[in-house]
């Protein structure tokens, strides 16, 4: 067993466990040994699993989840570029993570697959950076961006989308069908805005002075209202 078939590092969101290319059983064994060695260190933490392009079903993800649980580590998210893995992750009620790179690759190999509605609500995803053209963020729960969303970027959320900055890209809130989802931004000027099955574009003329706004579905249409509204 190569020592680097499994990499474990600390991130702001907890541990990140990256699995290498070895056969599955060997990886699970290696992970168990690593956990055994560092049991005291890992205990009580939470972890995300990065499996690259590997296809995993629910049983295998749960296998890792159970193994981690034995050392009191809570598996909360799985990063993968394989649709099967992402789907299984959503079914287990965990958070699928997609980096900007992964998203581009995934977009290519992407069918019309839409993840099913999660069985229990996913938490929020906080993005603390500028989201640039060509970058795509997908998350089954709320997405909060602290920064700008540039034209050419896409944000897809199962629930609300909040942008503490300029919103110029494409956003889809309530992407799993939730009409009560809203989109809020300090400067709400998206290329296209979708909530559930509704689609709207920003007015062609630019506003003189941007005001914070909230878009929601009202009487079967998307409308934007200034914030705070009376």
């Amino acid at each position, binding site marked *: 067993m190569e020592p680097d078939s499994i990499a474990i590092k600390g991130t702001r969101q907890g541990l990140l466990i990256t699995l290498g290319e070895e056969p599955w059983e060997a990886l699970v064994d290696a992970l168990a040994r690593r956990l055994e060695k560092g049991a005291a260190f890992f205990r009580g933490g939470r972890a995300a699993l990065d499996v690259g392009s590997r296809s995993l079903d629910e049983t295998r993800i749960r296998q890792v989840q159970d193994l981690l649980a034995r050392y009191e580590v809570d598996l909360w998210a799985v990063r993968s570029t394989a649709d099967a893995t992402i789907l299984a992750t959503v079914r287990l009620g965990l958070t699928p993570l997609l980096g900007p*790179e992964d998203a581009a690759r995934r977009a290519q190999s992407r069918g019309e697959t839409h993840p099913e509605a999660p069985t229990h609500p996913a938490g929020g995803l906080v993005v603390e950076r500028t989201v*640039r053209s060509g970058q795509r963020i997908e998350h089954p729960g709320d997405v909060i961006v602290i920064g700008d969303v540039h034209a050419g970027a896409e944000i897809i959320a199962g629930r609300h989308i909040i942008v503490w900055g300029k919103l110029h890209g494409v956003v889809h809130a309530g992407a799993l069908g939730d009409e009560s989802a809203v989109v809020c931004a300090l400067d709400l000027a998206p290329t296209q805005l979708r909530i559930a099955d509704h689609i709207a574009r920003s007015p062609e003329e630019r506003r003189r002075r941007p005001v914070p706004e909230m878009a929601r579905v009202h009487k079967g249409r998307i409308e934007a209202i200034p914030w705070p509204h009376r």
Partner: protein
Amino acid sequence: MSARVVTVTSGKGGVGKTTVVANLGVALAMRGQRVVTIDADIGLRNLDVMLGLENRIVYDLVDVVEGRCRLRQALVRDKRLQELYLLPAAQTRDKSALRAEDMVRICDELRESFDFLLVDSPAGIEQGFRNAVAPADEVLIVTNPEVAAVRDADRVIGLIEAEGKGPARLIINRLKPELVRRGDMMDTAAVLELLAIDLIGIVPEDETVIVAANTGRPIAFTDHSPAGRAFHDIARRMLGEEVPFAPLKEPGFLERLFRWMRPEGEEQR
């Protein structure tokens, strides 16, 4: 002594990457820096032509990678500046002849003998771009003040940030002060607001740049033209000097008064 590897890239083609590399190479070498300009655009080489060194090429980058010559043999010394070299691209091959590891290895080998390695990236975001960015310590993004170029620049900045190569710095090339003044071209502030990265230079549109490129004598050799001065300013900023951004053209007194009287929020209309 270890060189800084600076990759010049843009996303969109035709915005002036090769012009920037040629002129920064000249401007840095004129300031006593030991510079290698590296053409990473395999199959579509231009840098040799702009530097006027086309007829001196014996070996190229791919020859080095494939072991047909030593790295030193492929370096072409500039005919005017002792400390300026070119590592040319292969013209008869394509990007698949080069891998990112090759670029990293070649740059590492050159690092100890030089001060700057300027890498001219191909347009696009595919393998050729990745090869050019792989060895970079710093990245300069070239854009023109037009929506399409700025959008592509944004895409590339995102990729560079994801690679951990940032923060990239921006060169706005071919700005036409006259058009900006009439409100027919994006101004610097608008580009910077869209891209949200640091600016390292503004190069005004200048016909002499094209003439210079065609004759293989980069404009930076004569720094009394506006574009030549702009390239020298960028070189000085790369060397850590504080160089103020010269106003492209002084607005007239009445114009300034008019701007000052007009409330800020009205300007969009």
